[in-house]
């Protein structure tokens, strides 16, 4: 299993033990480390260094007495009046570097004209774009929402033999209003045969699409064309057999799903430890202590001082098991892996108090492999109350967007809320999820960043959707 060169892995080791790798890179390193004792040892020794530095820092801590007086000494140095006057000073206009114009003959107004032109073009673009809902990453949540829903009311879809492919091929749902207004786009050539899903399109389409539309009509009579909107021209049904795959659309578009939301989902958390055990270590790492250790290190970073961190991690990984598999006929699997309230709260709590109390509890946080090696047995969670974030919890979660969560972790939270929480909880969780979402494997920075702000419209749209649904 030593396919990857140690030289490729070594630079990643530090980020690995720190839990800072992307999920795919983390798997890569873990896979390598499972078969490479050298790298394992290297990782261990590096993680030991942090503990030593920490110990060194603790040893040089001047003690509570020092800090009790520090504040006083600090403010004794302040001239509060002076500072206040300083603040009160009218804001100096920010020093702007004059734009150097190498050629003095360029008339100033040229910039003005250019500016107007740019603004106009931008305005037109925005105007156009505004009509295209951009919600690419959303499907993951709604996706799960649907899966969860499916698990409540078994649908015959699950026995479809080609379900896995369907799941993968199904384009992410968009919130494009399902109606005739989307048709003109649907029939455009760029839309491809996928657009043939709608009746009208079928009528207007040539013989090429006949079989596809012929099948799809009885199968999905009310299916909105939004499902296969031209936003995903890449989804191209192959002739003939692929019509089967295309025909039973697994997930309705969110717009259609919306009324469902009015019904409060009541999923009980069914927890089966043995299942988790199997799933939690899905990478074939078995019981190798060093590998387990590697896992635990990253778990520790992510789950902070949470005592049941290892447990929660196992659970969340069970929950996040390959989606395609869960999606088809394994609706109950999604249930089984659902973290229960205790887990989620401690998980969430570990984050929310992370920074505030970090210094206070820092002394208890040293890495201890021994502590984690035997994950606490999951006891009597089977009958625990379904997770339901209280409003303040959800709000705190939504407010805590400055905390860096991994996407998978944020998804666990969002999914849990979706499964059992109230609509408000869903909205909050979704908001939090959105705020943390990212596109290229890196989480977004806290809300003040431009990118997070850019996601704001989408967030609002989700909320609106949920609000509509509740009526």
């Amino acid at each position, binding site marked *: 299993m030593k396919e990857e060169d140690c030289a490729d892995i070594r*630079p990643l*080791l*530090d*980020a690995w033990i*720190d839990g*800072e790798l992307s999920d795919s890179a983390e798997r890569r390193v873990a896979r390598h480390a499972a078969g490479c004792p050298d790298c394992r*040892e*290297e990782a*261990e*020794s*590096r993680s*030991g*260094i*942090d*503990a*030593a*530095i*920490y*110990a*060194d*820092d603790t*040893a*040089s*801590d*001047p003690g509570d007495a020092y*800090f009790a007086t*520090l*504040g006083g*000494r*600090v*403010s004794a*140095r*302040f001239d509060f009046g002076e*500072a206040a006057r*300083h*603040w009160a000073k009218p804001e100096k206009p920010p020093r702007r570097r004059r734009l150097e114009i190498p050629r003095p003959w360029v008339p100033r107004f040229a910039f003005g004209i250019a500016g107007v032109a740019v603004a106009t073009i931008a305005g037109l673009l925005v105007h156009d774009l505004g009509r295209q809902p951009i919600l690419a990453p959303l499907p993951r949540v709604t996706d799960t929402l649907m899966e969860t829903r499916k698990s409540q009311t078994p649908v015959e879809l699950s026995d479809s033999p080609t379900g896995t492919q369907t799941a993968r091929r199904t384009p992410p749902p968009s919130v494009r209003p399902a109606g005739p207004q989307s048709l003109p786009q649907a029939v455009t050539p760029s839309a491809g045969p996928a657009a043939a899903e709608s009746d009208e399109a079928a009528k207007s389409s040539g013989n090429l699409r006949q079989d596809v539309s012929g099948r799809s009509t009885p199968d999905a009579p009310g299916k909105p064309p939004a499902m296969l909107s031209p936003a995903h021209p890449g989804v191209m049904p192959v002739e003939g057999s692929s019509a089967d795959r295309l025909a039973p659309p697994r997930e309705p578009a969110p717009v259609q799903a919306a009324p469902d939301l009015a019904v409060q989902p009541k999923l009980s958390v069914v927890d089966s430890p043995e299942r988790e055990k199997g799933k939690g270590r899905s990478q074939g790492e078995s019981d190798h202590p060093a590998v387990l250790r590697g896992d635990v290190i990253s778990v520790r*970073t992510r789950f902070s*001082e949470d005592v049941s961190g290892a447990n929660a991690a196992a659970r969340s990984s069970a929950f996040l098991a390959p989606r395609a598999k869960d999606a088809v006929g394994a609706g109950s699997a999604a249930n089984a892996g659902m973290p229960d309230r*205790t887990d989620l*709260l*401690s998980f*969430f*709590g570990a984050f*929310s*108090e992370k920074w*505030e109390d*970090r*210094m206070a509890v*820092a002394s208890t*946080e*040293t890495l*201890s492999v021994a*502590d984690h090696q035997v994950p606490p047995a999951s006891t009597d969670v089977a009958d625990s109350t379904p997770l339901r974030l209280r409003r303040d*919890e959800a709000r*705190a979660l939504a407010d805590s967007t*400055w905390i*860096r969560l991994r996407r998978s972790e944020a998804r666990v939270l969002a999914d849990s809320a979706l499964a059992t929480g109230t609509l408000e909880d869903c909205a909050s969780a979704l908001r939090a999820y959105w705020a943390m979402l990212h596109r290229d494997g890196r*989480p977004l920075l*806290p809300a*003040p960043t431009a990118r997070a702000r850019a996601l704001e419209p989408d967030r609002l749209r989700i909320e609106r959707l949920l609000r509509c649904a509740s009526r």
Partner: protein
Amino acid sequence: MEQERPEERDGELVRRTLAGDRPAFDILVGRYQRGLYALIRGIVRNSADADDLVQEAFFRAYRYLDRFDTDRNFRPWIFKIGANLSFQHLRKQRRGSWLSIDAEDPSTGRTLGDRLKSPGAEDAVPRRAEYRRLSEAMDQLPPLYRSILVLRAVHELHYEEIAETLCIPVGTVMSRLSRARRALRELIEPQPSPTVESRRSR
């Protein structure tokens, strides 16, 4: 299980301070003094200097509080001030008591960088007894390495937060942290697993 969060957010405290509420700033000081002290002491490696610099950092923070973006977290901001003051302080001192990565070891004629580059080379370097203890090894590290090690090991900041605090890209955090750990381990002792006994359980 319930998380009680009676504390006000940093931005609110700053707003109150700016409105003339002095105790609000004391809360901020209380909240971050320990962390700031650990960072500064970790960089300057001297308690007396750290004491001065912590006060100076808070003083500056207070003086320029109106520039703080209240939507953001106070920690990276005060840490940035503290780290910059520490580096400035060390530059001024120029004691040269730390090893530059490019400085030659007079006994071997090789730089620390050379030693780090060639994995098997540590055997050729005579072990120095004074490097045994970690704190002494930390003293020898370049301050940039110290700062990043402290931010990670003591404060457990994420890479992005470290990047923000030190004003460097995340990729640099990753590589610099890696080099810093290796450098430190080299200084402690060439053998791997140097710190087993110092690992503490909770």
